[in-house]
Structures are given as structure tokens and as C-alpha cells.
């Protein structure tokens, strides 16, 4: 086990011991019509923790993180985000959404707005910040994702990797306490995956609480405190990364790992 990994495990134990909970999901169930997509999910995420969620397609991992900012509603159980329980109350949902940033597989930038306008829109309209302040912060985060020189372009003029980095900057401009990533590199050409992962590693080092749905196992090994494996709507296995990769317990996890690591 590498020194970095050991250090990370120590970090995680300290977070758990601190008891500062960012997200608490208890007994959560969800159905799409008749289809039971999430089954009895129990998950506690501590402040500063970085979790990678993996699993075969259709296992419910995207749905799980989309429930955390109420892009999907849940039918049973409870989800508490930063002390606020998700209910049907619109005020609660909007407050949680402004605390939780999200990056999508297909970036979902606003094509009719320039890069900088994409980044300043929510701070100006949701947080009611002065335009100047919002722009200054947008420029800071665009620099941080190494794309400051493209601020006046439109999303359609950027490559996929650049667009995803803008999407990350857009979320960060709301100064969220939690960042959700829904397969952020799955729609990218191989050459561009690294530039996005680099930004995410940088973000991880800054102490952000992160939930990442991803198949980038190298990234998971490098930054995750915990890895969660889902299959058929339930959490099948979770562990610290070294233990997860080197010594998977369930048969399904072993099969999954053998399939994605064999090439």
C-alpha cells in the first residue's frame, strides 16, 4: 500500500470520527413506474470526503446522485443534505441546489451564453451578487480550470474537454459545499479525459466534498476516500480504494472489476 493511500485512509477515518455529515441518506427507495431503480440505499458522506461510485450501466448510480440535488425525486426514505431534508418544498430544494454543484456527462452548458455568462448567471440571479463580483470570481475559477483565455467564446466553439472544464467552473462559481459528478469523462475523446481529471484532482486537493460517478479507476485509486459499487439498484460493496481493488469481497464486484480492468 502506498504512503499516499495510507495517508488518505487516515484522513477518511478522521472525517468519520469528526461526525461532520455532508449528506445522509437513510432507507431511500425509488421506482421508475414499476421498476425498482434504487433499493434501500443507506449512505453517509462526511465533509471533505471523496467518493467514487461505480457499477454496470443501469445499476442506478446516476439516479442515486441525481436524487441528492432532487433532479429525481425519491419515494421512500430520507435524504438530508447539509442539515436540510429534501422534501417537496420548493424553497428547500432551491436552497440545496445552490449548495450542491453538479457536472453532467454532456456538460449541459447554455449554448446561447458565452463562457463567462454561463459562469456568472447563477451567482447573479440566484445569489443576487453584483455583476462585477460574479465576473471576478468567474475569471478566477476559469483560470483555475486553465481556460481563462476562452472566457468570451461560446460553448459551441470549444472542445469537449474545454466544455466540461467550463461546466466545472460554472458549478464552482456558486461556491458549493458539495460537488456531484455524473460520468464527467464518458462523453470525451481519450485525449481530453486527462485535462478534465486533472482539474478534478486539483479540486479534490482543495478539500471539496465530492461524489463522482465514474469508470476512471485510475482517478478513483488516486483521489477517492471510499469506493462504492452498485448493482441492480443497491449498494453491493464499499471500501477504501486499495482494499476495494486488491481484495473485492462480493462475486459481482469481482466480475465487474475483471471486466473493466482486463483491457
Amino acid at each position: 500500500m502506498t504512503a499516499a493511500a495510507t495517508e488518505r485512509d487516515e484522513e477518511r477515518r478522521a472525517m468519520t470520527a469528526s461526525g461532520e455529515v455532508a449528506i445522509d441518506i437513510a432507507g431511500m427507495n425509488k421506482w421508475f413506474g414499476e421498476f425498482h431503480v434504487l433499493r434501500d440505499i443507506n449512505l453517509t458522506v462526511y465533509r471533505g470526503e471523496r467518493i467514487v461510485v461505480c457499477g454496470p450501466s443501469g445499476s442506478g448510480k446516476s439516479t442515486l446522485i441525481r436524487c441528492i440535488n432532487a433532479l429525481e425525486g425519491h419515494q421512500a426514505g430520507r435524504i438530508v443534505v447539509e442539515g436540510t431534508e429534501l422534501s417537496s418544498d420548493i424553497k428547500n430544494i432551491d436552497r440545496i441546489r445552490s449548495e450542491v454543484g453538479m457536472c453532467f456527462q454532456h456538460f449541459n452548458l447554455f449554448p446561447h451564453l458565452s463562457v463567462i455568462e454561463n459562469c456568472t448567471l447563477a451567482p447573479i440571479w440566484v445569489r443576487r451578487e453584483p455583476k462585477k463580483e460574479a465576473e471576478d470570481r468567474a475569471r478566477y475559477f476559469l483560470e483555475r480550470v486553465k481556460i481563462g483565455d476562452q472566457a468570451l467564446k461560446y460553448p459551441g466553439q470549444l472542445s469537449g474537454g474545454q466544455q466540461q472544464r467550463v461546466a466545472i467552473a460554472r458549478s464552482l462559481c456558486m461556491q458549493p459545499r458539495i460537488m456531484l459528478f455524473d460520468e464527467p469523462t464518458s462523453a470525451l475523446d481519450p485525449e481530453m479525459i486527462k485535462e478534465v481529471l486533472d482539474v478534478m484532482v486539483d479540486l479534490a486537493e482543495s478539500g471539496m466534498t465530492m461524489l463522482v460517478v465514474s469508470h476512471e479507476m485510475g482517478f478513483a485509486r488516486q483521489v477517492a476516500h471510499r469506493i462504492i459499487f452498485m448493482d441492480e439498484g443497491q449498494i453491493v460493496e464499499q471500501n477504501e480504494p486499495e482494499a476495494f481493488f486488491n481484495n473485492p469481497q462480493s462475486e459481482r464486484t469481482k466480475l465487474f472489476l475483471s471486466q473493466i480492468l482486463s483491457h
Partner: protein
Amino acid sequence: MAGEKPVAFVAERQIPPSPPPVRTGGALGWARDNLFSGVFNSVATLLSLAFVAYILAMVVPWLFLDSVWNASSLQGCRQVDDGACLAVINERFLQFVFGFYPEELRWRPILAFVLLFVAIWPALFSSAPRKLLIFSALYPLLAYWLIWGGSLWGPVGAVVGIAIGWACIRFLPPLVRGRLDEGLAFLAAVGAGILATALWWLFCVIAFEDALSAVLAIGLEPVESARLGGFLLSTIIGVSGIAGSLPIGIVLALGRQSNLILIKAVCVGFIEFIRGVPLITLLFVAWLLLSYFLPPGTEFDLILRVVIMVTAFASAYMAEVIRGGLAGLPAGQYEAADSLGLDYWKSMRLIILPQALKISIPGIVNTFIGLFKDTTLVIIIGLLDPVGLLQPIRADQNWNGIVWELYGFIALFFFIFCFAMSRYSMYLERNLDVGHR
């Protein structure tokens, strides 16, 4: 195996970019490529050219070379030359434009028409100063006052009604905060606002107008609706319909997508009913039936009623056009707006509608053009739009027998307006195009 090439290959140098080959032969080459590229195409080109030449040979001498501008009757025209008798348009031009609007007051519609361009300037071109939008918002009432005249306090009373409605929507929800669901409170406030405005307009405006007129009488000489006609009338109905149908259509399209059953039902019912009924039926309703539904003694102008019906008709179509645009947006745009914490109205206004409307531009302009041409249907209920003015002219002994010149002139008027709208929509599409997704 002998003679087989080795697989390995390494490029020895970077091939520099070079300009594309020059296209062959300028205009002649273009003609050969596009007009005479084969036997069939050559024949088709020649036949088309012959047809165009044939039409021009008929029209040009008739309309330009042999036409008569100055005569007092068709016979007079014929004595001069055998081309188009444009003297009729020369003589009746002002009537075509204004109908029977009093001659000495015609500066008022002209001023209103000029101000129309000031009012739509900020709506059409983003380079215009934003402050002008205030003028645009007040323009409808200003134009109404200029054209119909009367006391200034009438339009002011109408503005007060709108202000009352707005105040209901703005200040009622905070009063019930905590006791009522937020969305429900907002809906209730909108309902109360509309009701308050309607009640004010129906019962209080006249008293308001009389009271203030007694204090300070400012007014223009009133002009009856029956004296309005011609292109003035078409423009009034068309422009009001266009200006009204877009916002109402947007609201209907959003309502149709709403999760609130009642709102959805009202919007779907309105759209389907209005779309399922011919415009002429609606115009008859406006003409004959509407007064049964209004409080007795309400003086409700016929042109205003027609404008309301035409607007409602176009709104239903507009709603469906915009719904198409809304459906054309990827779900990711809604999700991204949600995930940033934007509420429904902000995400609609800032994210969804700008894109949906851009996709819908061709359909929207199509509806505008259709609406503008449909204004000629008001002839059915006795209003004297340009087509309505034709009948008395053709019945006039002096001009009896003239057909082409008059219809052609009206067609030209509508063509200019519709073509301008079409061109503007193309400009707008180009201007809003900021790269593919």
C-alpha cells in the same frame, strides 16, 4: 512472400497546407455547372428563361411603359394609353391608406405610425438603447389615444388598471406567506390581479375618466371606429395581433407544459378550441355575440373586439409553435438550470425561452405573416380594410371594370410587409447563431 510491401511506415515530413484549387471559369463556368450541366437541365433552363421573358414582356409595357397616372376615369385612361390605369390608385391613394379618417386629423395616425418604429426598435435590434423599452410598453395606449382621440384620461385609466393588477400580483403573496403554499399563493394573486384589472376596466375607468376630465380636460378630437379603414386598419389589427399573440402564446405554451392540472387544462382547452374554429366564426362572435356577455350598456369598440379575437386566434397557433421549440431543447438544459438553483421563472426566462424562441423563429414569423394577411377577413363583418374599400371603388361609375391594378396594389402592400418580416427573421436567425451545440 516475395514482392509484399512492408507494413511499417513513418512520415518523413509534415505536409504543409496549400490553397484549394481555383474554381474553373468564372461566370461561364458557373453557368455551365449550374444551368447547362446536361441535356435535361439545358432544356429546363431555356424553357424557364422563355417563360420569364414572356411574363416580363406582358407586364413591363402594361405596368411601366403604357401606364396612365393622370386621368379621372377608366375611359380617360384608355384615351391616353392602353396600359395599367394607375390613375385610380393615384386618385384613391389616401383613402386606401386612411379609410374615411378625417382629412385634417390624418397627422395623428401618421405620427402613431412613425412612433411605432421607435417603439419596436429596441424589440428588434439589440443595439437600441434599453431605456426605450419603457416607451415601447406605453406605446399601445399612446397609439390608441392618437388614433381614436378622446380624453387622455381614458388610456391613463387603462394603465391604472394594469398597475392595480400588477400590485395584486406583487404584494398579495407576501401577505399570506406561511399560511398558503407558495405556488398556490402566486396563482391566487395572479387570478386576483386579473380580476381586479378586469373589474376596474369594466366599472371604474369611465368614472375615473369623467372625474379627471372635470378637473383637467386634456383630449384630442375623437374619431369613430367606423371612419377607420384601409391600410391603417390592417396595420392596427395586424400589429396589435402580432404584439399580443407572442407573449400570450408563450404563456399558453408554458401553461400547457405545467404540472398544475388546472392551468394545463385551461391552456389546452383554449388552444384546442380556438384552433378548432375558423377565424371567420370568431370574427362573427366578436361582431354579434360578444355584447351579450358584457354588462349591459358597455360601449365596446368593434375594432377592439376584432383585435382581441385575432390575437386569441394567433396566440393559439403561436403556443403550438413555441411548444415545438420547447420540446426541441435537450432535457439537459432544464436539468442544468435546475441544478444551479434557478427557480422556474428564472430558468424559463434566462435559459429555456431564449433558446426555444430561437428555434421557433421560422414558425413564429410564419404565424405573424399568416395573421397579417388574415386581417383582410374583417371585410366579412363590414370593416373597410383595403379589400373592403375595393367594392365602392369598383362600383364607382368612373372606375368600373378595373381589377388588376387595384388587387395588385393591395397585394404589393401586403407583400412588402410580409417580405420585410421574412427578411428580418432571417437576419435574426443569423444574428443569434452562436455556433452549433
